[in-house]
Structure formats: C-alpha cells, structure tokens
C-alpha cells in the first residue's frame, strides 16, 4: 500500500506544522513516511509545499504524481493540478480566482498553466483547473473553509481572525478523514504539537467539524508498529550522528540548507555521556560558534581539531567556496576536520533553497595544491546519521579533512525509520593514532610507513604547525628533498586509506548481477531503488543498482570489476555534466552508456526516474528530468 499526499500553501502560513501533525498521526498508526519540503528563498508569502509518501513498508522516495492534493489557496491548485491522480481538496472560496489574480505566482508558471488551460478550452481560473482534474477522473472535494472557521469561532467565542488559524488543520483533517483513519490519532498528534490552550481547542474543534462532514474514500489497513521509530530529516540525522560520534566543537555561518543542523546542535549543546573512568553519567558541552563568515567557520573548526576536539562545520555551496583556502591548510597540516556540505543549486546563490548534486567535483578538488581529502556521499537519512560518525573516524584515522556530502533533498526531507536501522550498537569510534607523548619534544610530522604520524594535541607537547611546507617538527622548510618526502607522506595517506577502507563499504549494491547497471549516488538513491522495484515488478527486468558512497578514495578496482561485463550502464544523478559518471570513466576506464540527469532544483521522484530509465532503456542516451513544481 502506498499513497502520495501533498499539501501546499503560502510560506509562513503553517504548512510545515500541519504536514508534521498529519505525518505524526499516520506514524502513530504504524505507517512509514517519506516527505519532502519545497520552498522559495523567501520568508512569507511564496508558494511552498510538502509532498509525502505514506506506506505500510519503509518509504524512501516521493512521487511527482500525487493521489491526494490538499489545498486552501488558489496558487497551490495552479501549481499542482496537473499532478493529481485521485482526489483534490480545494477551497470553495477560491473557485473563481483567476490565474492572473495570484500575485505571488511566478510569471513563467502563470504562462505555462494559462497555455495549458487555454489549449483545453478551459477558463484560466481555479474552476478551469478543477474541470481539468475532473476530466482526468480526479474526485473533487470542496471545503468551505470559511464555514469551518465561523463554526470554530462561534464554538470557541474567539474572533474570526484567530479561528482562521485552524485552516491548515482543516485541510489535513479532511485528508485524514478521507483516508478513513481513527480520529483519536489525529487529535493526539495535535495535542503533541499545540501546547497553547486556545490553539489546541481551535484545532480540535476544526477536526470535529471536519469529521462530521467528510466521508472516507479509502479504507486503509492499519499496519501498527512493533518497533521503535523516529522521524528524522537530513539536518537532524547528521547532527545526531555527529553528537553520537563525539562532536565537541561545531562552527558555522548561517546558510540554507545547512544551518538547521547547527541550530539543532546548539539547542542540544550539553549532552550526557558515561565517563569511562568512573562509570558516572555526566554532561559535556559541545561548543557551537556562529562565526562571522565561512572562512572563520572552517578555521575555527580546524583549530579546535588541533586541540583534540572532534570538530566540524556545516555549510552549502557559497560557504564551501569560501572554505577552500582553509581546507588546504587543514590538508597541509594533517588536521582531522569534518565539513558537512549540503549541496544546493549553484553557481553563485543559484537556487538557494533547492537541491543539487553539482558540487561533487568541486568537493573532490577543493583548494589549491594537492592534498588528500576523503569524500563521503550519503544516500538516505540512515546513512546521513552513520556517515556523520564515519566522517570523524576517517578524519582522525587518516588525519585529513573529510567532506561529507548531503543534499538539500535529504536535508529538508524526512523519513520515518526504525531506530534499529541506525545500528547504534555496531557504531565504533576510531580516533586513529592519537597519542600523549611522554617526550615533550616530539615530531608531529614524523615519517612513517603508512604516511600517518602519531598525533598529539595542543597542550600535551610542544609542536609546530604551518601552512608552509615543513619538516618533521612542523618548522618551515623549503629544502627540496624534505619537500619531496613530506609531500609524498601526505599523499600516501590516501593510498593507505584506499588499502584499508574495504571497497565493499564504499559501494553499496542492490539487486543481482545483471547486464544492466544503474549507477547513482546521494539523494536519488531512494527514487532509483523504488523505480527499479516497479520496473522489475512489471516487466521482470533485472537491474543492478550501484550506489557510490565514498568518492575519495575511489573504489576503482571493485567498480571496474562490477562494470566490466555490463551491456547497459545508466548513470542517474542531479547535475548537468554527469559528474559521477565522468569520475567513473576516469577511474575505471568504463563510461556510462546512458544518463538520466536532473538539475531543476527539485528532488528526483520515483515516477519520473522510472520513466527516465525506461527512456534510457529504449535508447535515449541522455534523459533530462524536469519534475516537481
């Protein structure tokens, strides 16, 4: 069972909260959910929407086609009416609103929608859009929001302007009632969210009113849940992973879609831990600094790492650009610092609140000069959590910066997961060659077989660091023989990492060996897996999915082996160049035969990926996806 549901409305009008209440109610019944939030770079007034997939088994992607659309404004109808397949909930008050009377709608959208309605001989208004849906077999559910508002106002004896706030809840209550689910769970979710008495009442009355008016359209079997579950978005998953992994210092400069991670950590700046010496439960502090810019953010984090703190920063494209010089210093000085890089649409400020996978090559090549960097890309929320710990472990083990790639499509999307998926008991902490030297005078950059020197921290011994080339003591040295050796020592660490990190951990495989392979990485993973399940179910087609998880050190040998006998290799990723595909070619000599690409800023949805893969399988070499509003 799988249903996709969408709610839209003006940014700042409470859409997020409503979608959460709705999700919580469903989750409490044992449904899994995958939800994505789309919004403009705007605080109030522009169109935003939530797209949820509700399922009795683990959900991992969204669909562009939605079964149910919940709306109360005209703009939502205009943006999404072509994507609705079963039910559209609309406000009877906006039926006559003309396409050209919606101020906030972007002219390109108005033009596109206008053209379509005109072609169909329909009125360029909400009523035209409703007719369009009706002719496609969509059932329309009119809601007189005003009436509900009036009823709420009368019952609670509050002014209409206050009762207005129940609009969102009305929209979700209608959706919920249509699904034929027990009212109590929705009421409880509302109680969990609204602590303030009036709001709570307001919303409860709205729910009562709706339930007395709406007949169910579905009768969903209630899955129930045996296991403990949490709902996490990408920012929180990374933050939780960092905290569990021992984060002690985090610096950041505000930027979408990264800052929510740091804000979350700051809200949890004191964490409990078990003192291994005494066994006591104690609190420790994670220092969170809102820096003056990203130059400061990366350098503060790097410096904190020199003291032995597990330290990190989180940013997005524009900030990462500013961090380039700092990362070079960290590379030169062999500092274990972690950068969580939330990719969004570039270049420049690009699409500040939309997703992208266009910074893969930048992450791999950031900074001038050569230095080892480890680059990890998470494909879902569980990986985002686990990779946050892995990033620290690899950073400390190989004493070099680690860049953890996450995209807006994961940051602002959420999954309901079983806690056991996190594998908490299996998570290890590896601090690498961290030592307390007995000698006060020690060589921070001592030459070793594997390139990794024992690392003491500031305050435990005398030592030098410099961004200039240096000798074993960390003193400036321009001498050519030392330069050759020291350079090689640094670079060797990546070779050591390549030897030590099992290639099987750098690549995840799904499905049996087959003549067709799909290569992907990052957030498209869920959509790709769902699309392929669907294709296999319908056509018996066998596809092997290869998810690239660690790009540096690159799992060249294993990947080459996997790709060697493939007839068709389809690369699915969210950029123009097919960057991962190019890297695969560079590292293995094998080029993808087909590409399914997307760079419109919207996450990949399973239905469009399915279509894209079909086109590729039918011979289209380069398929460009453009789904999402």
């Amino acid at each position, binding site marked *: 069972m799988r249903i996709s549901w969408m709610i839209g409305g003006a940014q700042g009008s409470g859409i997020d909260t409503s979608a959460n209440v709705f999700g919580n109610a469903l989750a409490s019944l044992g449904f899994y959910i995958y939800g994505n939030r789309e919004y403009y770079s705007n605080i109030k007034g522009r169109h935003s929407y939530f797209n949820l997939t509700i399922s009795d088994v683990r959900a991992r992607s969204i669909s562009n086609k939605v079964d149910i659309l919940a709306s109360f404004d005209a703009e939502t109808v205009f943006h999404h009416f072509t994507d609705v397949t079963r039910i559209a909930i609309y406000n009877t008050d906006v039926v006559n609103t003309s396409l050209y009377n919606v101020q906030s709608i972007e002219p390109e959208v108005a033009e596109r929608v206008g053209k379509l309605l005109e072609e169909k001989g329909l009125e360029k208004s909400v009523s035209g859009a409703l007719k369009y849906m009706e002719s496609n077999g969509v059932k329309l559910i009119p809601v007189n929001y005003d009436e509900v508002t009036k009823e709420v106002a009368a019952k609670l004896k509050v002014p209409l302007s206050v009762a207005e706030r129940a609009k969102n809840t009305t929209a979700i209550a209608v959706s919920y009632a249509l699904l034929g689910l027990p009212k109590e769970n929705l009421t409880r979710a509302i109680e969990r969210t609204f602590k303030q008495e009036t709001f709570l009442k307001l919303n409860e009355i709205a729910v009562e009113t709706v339930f007395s008016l709406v007949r169910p359209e579905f009768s969903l079997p209630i899955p129930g849940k045996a296991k403990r579950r949490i709902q996490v978005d990408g920012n929180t998953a990374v933050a939780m992973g960092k905290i569990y992994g021992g984060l002690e210092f985090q*610096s950041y400069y505000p930027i979408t879609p990264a800052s929510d991670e740091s804000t979350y950590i700051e809200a949890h700046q004191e964490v409990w831990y078990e003192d291994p010496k005494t066994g006591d439960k104690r609190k420790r502090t994670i220092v969170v600094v809102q820096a003056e810019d990203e130059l400061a953010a990366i350098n503060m984090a790097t410096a*904190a790492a020199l003291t032995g*703190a597990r330290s990190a920063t989180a940013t997005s494209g524009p900030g990462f650009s500013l961090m380039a010089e700092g990362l070079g210093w960290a590379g030169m000085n062999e500092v274990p610092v972690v950068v969580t890089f939330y990719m969004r649409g570039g270049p420049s400020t690009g699409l500040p609140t939309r997703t992208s996978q266009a910074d893969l090559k930048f992450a791999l090549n950031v900074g001038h000069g050569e230095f080892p960097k480890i680059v990890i890309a998470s494909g879902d929320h569980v990986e985002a959590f686990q990779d946050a710990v892995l990033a620290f472990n690899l950073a400390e083990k190989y004493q070099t910066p680690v860049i953890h790639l996450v995209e807006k499509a994961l940051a602002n999307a959420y999954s309901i997961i079983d806690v056991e998926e996190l594998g908490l008991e299996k998570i290890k902490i590896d601090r690498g060659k961290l030592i307390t030297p007995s000698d006060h005078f020690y060589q921070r950059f001592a030459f070793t077989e594997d390139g990794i020197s024992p690392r003491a921290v500031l305050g435990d011994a005398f030592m030098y660091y*410099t961004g200039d080339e240096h000798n074993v003591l960390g003193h400036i040295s321009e001498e050519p023989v030392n330069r050759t050796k020291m350079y090689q020592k640094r670079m060797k660490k990546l070779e050591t990492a390549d030897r030590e990190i099992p290639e099987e951990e750098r690549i995840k495989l799904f499905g049996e060996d087959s003549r067709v392979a799909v290569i992907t990485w990052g957030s498209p993973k869920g959509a790709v897996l769902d699309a392929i399940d669907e294709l296999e179910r319908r056509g018996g087609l066998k596809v092997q999915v290869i998810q690239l998880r660690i790009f540096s050190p690159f799992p060249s040998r294993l990947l080459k082996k996997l790709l060697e006998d493939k007839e068709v290799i389809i690369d699915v990723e969210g950029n123009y160049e097919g960057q991962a595909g190019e890297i695969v070619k560079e590292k293995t000599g094998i080029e993808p035969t087909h590409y399914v690409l997307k760079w419109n800023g919207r996450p990949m949805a399973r239905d469009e990926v399915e279509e894209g893969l079909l086109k590729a399988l039918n011979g289209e070499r380069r398929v460009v996806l453009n789904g999402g509003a």
Partner: protein
Amino acid sequence: MAELEWKPLWNDWCPGCGNFGILNAEQLAIQELGLDTKKLVIVSGIGCSGKTPHFFRIPITGVHTLHGRAITFATGIKLSNPSLTVIVNGGDGDLLGIGVGHFVSVGRRNVSLTVILHNNGVYGLTKGQASPTLKRGLKTKSLPRPNINDDVNPITLAISSGYTFVARGYAYDVKHLKELMKMAFSRKGLSLIEVLQPCPTYNDIFTKEYFDKRVYKLDNLPDWDPVVRREEEKGEKMSKAILKSMEWGERIPIGVFYRNDLVPSFEERIAESAKSYKEVIPAKARIEANGSPTTIIEDILKEKEV
C-alpha cells in the same frame, strides 16, 4: 636523537627589524609570568610577523596559519580547550586588511586571547606595499606613488569593536612592551597590543629615529586612568581612550588606552548556558571507551520518536 630535540628556526628577519623587539618582549613576558609553556599556543598569520612562533628561543607551541585568519584559529583553540593560553601575532596587513572582519568580530565575543599587532605600515613579506595603517599622502620606499587610502587606527577600531584591553607598545622599548604583555597574558577577555614596529627595509618614514623622538608613556600623564571600574564609567573611559588614540604627530602615546574587566569573556558566556563547560574541557572529554561511543543519545532519540 638529535632530531627529536626542540629547536628554533634560524631567524630570517632583516637586521634591525622591530620584530626582534617584539619577540624578546614576548619571551620575557612569558618567562617572567612563569607561564606553563606547554599550555601556551602562539598563533600567527602570514607575513614577516607571521613567522614569530618559529623564532622563539624557548620551547613553545606555534600555529602559523593563513593570511588574515590567525584570530579565527586562536578562537577555535581557546574555546575547545580554555585551559590553554593563546596569543596571536599578526601583521597590520594581516589583521587590518585581509583579516579585518575577524579583528572586529572577535571583539563582539571578548574571547580570552591577546592579539599582538605588528604595525610596520607596510606589507613586509610582499615587499613593501602600503598597509592599512599607512596614512594618506605618504610614500614609503617601495610605493610607486603616494598612498591614496586613508588609514585605519588600530586602537580606535579595537575599542569600538569591544576589545576589553587596548594598549600600544613600541618595539624598541622592550621593557615597557613586556609589561603590557604581562598584563594582557594574565587576564581574562580579549586584549590588543598594537606595537609600533619599524621596518627598516621598507618603511623609511616610521623609523626607529622617528619613533624614538616621539613616543611617550601614558603612565607618565598625571591623571591618566584607563580602567573601567564601574559600568557607568564605560562611556566616559571609552571616549577618552578614543580621543587619545587620535594623537599622532610630534607626540605618540604608548601604554594602556582602555581596560574593562567587567565584561564577561566568551568562555564565561558559554558556561552560563552550559554549566558543564566549566567542568569538562570539550577537547578532553572522553567520547569513546573501548572503541564505542560514550555519548548517550537516548533523550535525543526520544524527542524524535513517533
């Protein structure tokens, strides 16, 4: 094991460079205060001044960073391990040109650091271009034409940015400079010591001869009292200090311009909302036992439970 021994780098500053005086004063201040040098970190930027930590003749720990960024590194070090004494040595180009954003921003935080600003009026290591402290109309040796930028006054800027100890020393008055440093190194909060540092190679205007004739000590003024003792005095002391900072010409003041120990340090501000910050040094917290995390995330998971 000769290689294992700590040793300073051969000092490659030009003969007669004011930096020697700064280095001497800094070493003496550290020694006279009896600071535990293992708990001492000298952070520097890029420039002739940036090499300071490498040239120490006593064992210390040095972190020679990026052009303009020393303050950010120092902040990261201090906040993750507040038990360390952290000193910044930077050039006027470094701290007031490329790094001026950090110079101002750290003032808002009052992190316990001492910033020593080597003011030589030029970009020494890149061969003598005008620095942000060089006055308009002046033409030092390697300028193709007179400077057409106005100058930044480090003292005024520091006071208005929130530094809680602001002083000026002179590189060739090592004894006086050393005393300023001792005051700064042993206090909580953010300190600036601007040092008039002749660069005999590129600055042929602000020479030793120029300064020797002009500098005088604020301490010798009969009623000079730069210390804020009560909150209400702040405005008055600040304005007096700023006014004094503008004195430049026949007489150039050195000494303490402003001091306010009433402002909480950034470490104290963190501890106010996170009590454990005082008890457990973040950098020293035991985050791991037998390869497993010690952090308990039960509460955090519970918040997200559905």
